[in-house]
């Protein structure tokens, strides 16, 4: 490439450039526009009265004292919502959920009444004054006891239903049983295998806990019949559809506006009762209504993740070559099945649990149950159930390595899907489009001097010190998804991009996704810049306002780049096709005589004869166009991906454990990620830092605990672990590039990989520190106290 071409290319700041973020300008000045920053004239504030009990009948609700608090405008209960049929709402998991508790409460801090007042403080005072008389019922807290014959029935409202959207139910507290793979074939392999291993594997209940809680401002214009909702939603278009179904307002009269979002991590995908209550309140009062969750409400009632109680088994030959895997899990979905998953995939993408390995036979089964806990089951920085799946396989392969006495890196090499096997169809039916696992692992092992680390570990063990080396070589599945397998409420999980090029060559692109810190305004512009040869600086990106953007399923499950990014590239290509026709017309040559050169079409063999995209953009708005061609230069793409994408990575974590205090110090964490084509390396690195930090949080400290009565035992930031800058390790990042063959620009998505791949890496490191003592099992989170208890039970910390 000539110097001049290179200069032109750099000027575009397209794919591959570590372009500084467009979003930052407002945030560093404190000028972001988050939902709680919105203040509309006459706005009322809503506060929710919540249940102190996990399971109770509501005998009565007395609003009278609350209504006497000066400034309180109204108190809404289920009985008030009933006439408009809004006391229940559909969930994203094919179930229904009470908007406000209807005669019963099913989990602690459940929404019981909605108090409307002139300001935040008065609303809180009003909520305090609502008197609710409860009759407490026995609660089901442990999912393993939910299906007992004498277990209290949680959902009397659906007791007579033998199916809640995902197949037959066998018990009033049973939601569904989902299976994948060849059970008989797998069982047969296990029966005759040289080696088998079995381990209980727990992913405790955790919460994504974005720094901004959930909230909305609902504003119903009675005269126009128009509902506008400013909302912390990762999927504004899906929310609009749900609100339309729920309220009966035509979808065209509903506008959901995303605004700036202070982190989502899966917490902001579902539709929550607070949103619906605020919408109803605004419709009733005709003035805007704001509802903002407190932190305790956020952790206690909205979108938890995991709560997967699994058992993993592997069958292998004596060399550690895996022959079959069998996984089962009990999933605690809380009181309503509000987990976010595609209709046909009630256990999400759990069937990616064969990981990066060539495993001939596999079978897995998930049983989901109701308990008296908050509903949810969102994907916390992952696609649904992918963390659980990857955690299972990456833990199990370590257990197998210890059993057969093979090094934990070597056993992975022996089982990896080989580069020549791609595209590789797993025993559970996914087609891994690309991968290069051996290269990635070897690069990492070399970078950390793996052999040196193992030698050091051996020496430390000899002197009674605890040092662990964790490896994780994961394969992710992201980019939901092909509409033939992925839909929510019947809507396919495609995504969209609408690009309009202005006469002077700047452009605006609108997408159905929704940034929450990922930097879409920066990176989507880079994709379009490279495709169209227009500077990314002059490409404006808009998302989140359903009146402006084309329909899409939003941003979650790392789907923005695989689906939205693909839509952007393909919409740009439609524009480019038209531009080529215009260029040929202007240059008076045939299209075949033209070639693309960074930002222009030029005549082959005569580079001086060229038309830049900017010139073409102007021409597209004049009369000088080919006969019959429409004016303008724009295009819309609705992209339905042919397959998921499968980012992968190889991570190594080194920990030193103080056996007297249980304190685990992460000495080193080296993360190599392969997310295919890299759009913005700076942003990718930032995403990996963040994802690893969230993985660290989950593995080392996060859990949402309950007592036997279903009371929360830690639902504020006093107890729920969010790592500070002091605890957070330093991250080292690296990459390989294996482009996705089916994605228009070869990109795969990256944000969740470090979370999904990181969690087992930490656990593997902690367990590895005790591996020489025969330990294969330690449950997350690995807090100092628990590790210390473990040391004590092993007797390794006797002075």
């Amino acid at each position, binding site marked *: 490439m000539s110097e001049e071409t290179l200069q032109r290319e750099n000027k575009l700041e397209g794919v591959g450039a570590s372009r500084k973020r467009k979003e930052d300008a407002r945030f560093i000045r404190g000028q972001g526009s988050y939902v709680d920053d919105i203040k509309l004239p006459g706005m009322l504030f809503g*506060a929710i009265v919540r249940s*102190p009990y996990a399971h109770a009948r509501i005998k009565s609700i007395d609003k009278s004292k609350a209504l006497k608090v000066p400034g309180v405008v109204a108190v809404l209960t289920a009985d008030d919502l009933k006439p408009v049929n809004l006391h229940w709402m559909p969930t994203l998991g094919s179930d229904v959920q009470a908007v406000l508790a209807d005669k019963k409460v099913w989990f602690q801090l459940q929404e019981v009444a909605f108090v409307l007042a002139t300001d935040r*403080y008065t*609303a*809180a005072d009003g909520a305090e004054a609502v008197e609710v008389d409860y009759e407490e019922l026995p609660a089901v807290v442990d999912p393993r006891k939910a299906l007992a014959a004498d277990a209290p029935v949680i959902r009397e409202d659906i007791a007579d239903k033998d199916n809640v959207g995902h197949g037959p139910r066998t018990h009033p507290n049973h939601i569904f049983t989902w299976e994948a793979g060849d059970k008989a074939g797998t069982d047969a392999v296990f029966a005759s295998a040289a080696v088998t291993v079995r381990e209980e594997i727990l992913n405790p209940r955790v919460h994504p806990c974005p720094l901004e809680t959930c909230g909305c401002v609902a504003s119903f214009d009675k005269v126009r019949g128009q509902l506008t909702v400013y909302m912390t939603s990762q999927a504004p278009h899906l929310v609009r559809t749900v609100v339309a179904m729920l309220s009966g307002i035509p979808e065209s009269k509903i506008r959901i506006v995303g605004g700036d979002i202070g982190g989502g991590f899966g917490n902001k995908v579902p539709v929550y009762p607070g949103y619906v209550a605020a919408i109803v309140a605004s419709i009733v009062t005709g003035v805007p209504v704001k509802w903002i969750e407190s932190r305790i409400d956020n952790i206690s009632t909205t979108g938890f993740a995991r709560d997967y109680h699994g058992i993993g088994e592997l069958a292998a030959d004596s060399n550690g070559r895996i022959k079959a895997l069998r996984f089962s899990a009990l999933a605690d979905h809380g009181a309503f099945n509000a987990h976010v998953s595609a209709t046909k995939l009630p256990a999400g993408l759990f069937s990616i649990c064969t990981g990066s390995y060539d495993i001939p036979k596999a079978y897995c089964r998930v049983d989901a149950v109701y308990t008296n806990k908050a509903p949810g089951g969102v994907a916390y920085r992952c696609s649904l159930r992918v963390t659980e799946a990857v955690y299972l396989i990456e833990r199990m392969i370590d257990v197998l390595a210890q059993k057969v006495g093979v090094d934990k890196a070597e056993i992975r090499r022996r089982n990896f899907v080989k580069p020549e096997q791609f595209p590789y169809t797993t025993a559970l039916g996914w087609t891994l489009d690309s991968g290069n696992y051996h290269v990635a692992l070897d690069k990492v092992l070399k970078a950390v001097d793996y052999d040196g680390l193992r030698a050091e570990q051996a020496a430390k063990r000899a002197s009674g010190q605890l040092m662990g080396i964790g490896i994780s070589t994961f394969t992710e599945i992201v980019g939901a998804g092909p509409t033939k397998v992925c839909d929510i409420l019947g809507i396919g999980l495609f995504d969209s991009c609408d690009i309009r090029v202005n006469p002077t060559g700047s452009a605006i692109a609108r997408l159905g996704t929704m940034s929450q810190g990922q930097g879409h305004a920066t990176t989507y512009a880079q994709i379009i810049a490279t495709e169209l040869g227009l500077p990314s600086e002059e490409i404006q990106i808009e998302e989140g306002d359903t009146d402006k953007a084309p329909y899409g399923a939003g941003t979650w499950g790392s789907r923005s780049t695989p689906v939205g990014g693909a839509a952007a590239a393909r919409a740009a290509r439609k524009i480019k096709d038209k531009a080529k026709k215009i260029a040929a017309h202007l240059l008076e040559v045939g299209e075949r005589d033209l070639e693309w050169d960074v930002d222009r079409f030029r005549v082959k063999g005569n580079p001086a004869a060229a038309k830049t995209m900017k010139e073409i953009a102007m021409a597209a708005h004049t009369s000088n166009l080919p006969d019959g061609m429409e004016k303008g230069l724009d295009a819309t793409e609705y992209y339905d991906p042919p397959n998921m994408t499968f980012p992968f990575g190889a991570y190594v974590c080194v920990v030193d454990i103080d056996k007297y205090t249980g304190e685990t110090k992460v000495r080193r964490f080296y993360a190599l990620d392969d997310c295919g084509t890299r759009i913005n390396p700076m942003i990718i690195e930032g995403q990996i830092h963040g994802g690893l930090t969230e993985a660290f949080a989950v593995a080392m400290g996060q859990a949402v605990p309950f007592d036997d009565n279903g009371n929360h035992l830690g639902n*504020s930031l*006093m107890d729920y672990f969010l790592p500070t800058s002091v605890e957070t390790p330093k991250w080292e990042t690296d990459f390989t590039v294996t482009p996705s063959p089916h994605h228009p620009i070869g990109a795969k998505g990256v944000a969740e990989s470090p979370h999904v791949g990181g969690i087992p890496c930490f656990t593997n490191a902690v367990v590895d520190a005790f591996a020489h003592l025969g330990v294969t099992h330690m449950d997350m989170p690995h807090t100092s106290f628990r590790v210390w208890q473990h040391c004590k039970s092993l007797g390794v910390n006797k002075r």
Partner: protein
Amino acid sequence: MPAGPAAAWEVLADVELVAACMPGAKITERIDERHYKGTVTVKLGPATLSFRGDVEVKQLDAANRLLSMAAKGTDGSGSSAASLELTAVVRATEDGSSALTGSCQASVSGRAATFGGRMIDTVADQILRQFAANFAARVQARQPPPPASGPQVPAAQSPPATSPASEAPPAAALNAVALLWVVAKQWFRGVFSRKTA
């Protein structure tokens, strides 16, 4: 206090009366002479911390004019807890009036503790001032006012127009739990003074 020790002791010894001096406090149940149940409500920002607790009068020593009690309470939402042990003594001062002195051990945990010393100090200050004013007023009401040349009345400074901590008017019943905030203040001071000690 602008009254003799005997009058002051009369108030201190009457649990119900002491309660009435404490803004935001309420005795909800008298179990027996020595055991009470009560609440203290404190509003900070939009949050209402409502401590519900048990009060036990451990010692009521008229000879020495000494009251000793213990209280324990939790916030209704279970997110905060507080406990205290308190000893209060009425002493005669040289000029014939009296002073209320005492000591206590208190702890605040959970959400209430997160408000930190900076705020609790100020809040406790306000409550203390109001309590002192109310207490002194009650004591004074029990005997004729001292002569004009009498001692300076420390609590006679006009009570603050409002308490930042509580919106409720002084409740009718005493409650040792109500002393929590006074105590909390001393406790936090202790924490900070240790640094400089």
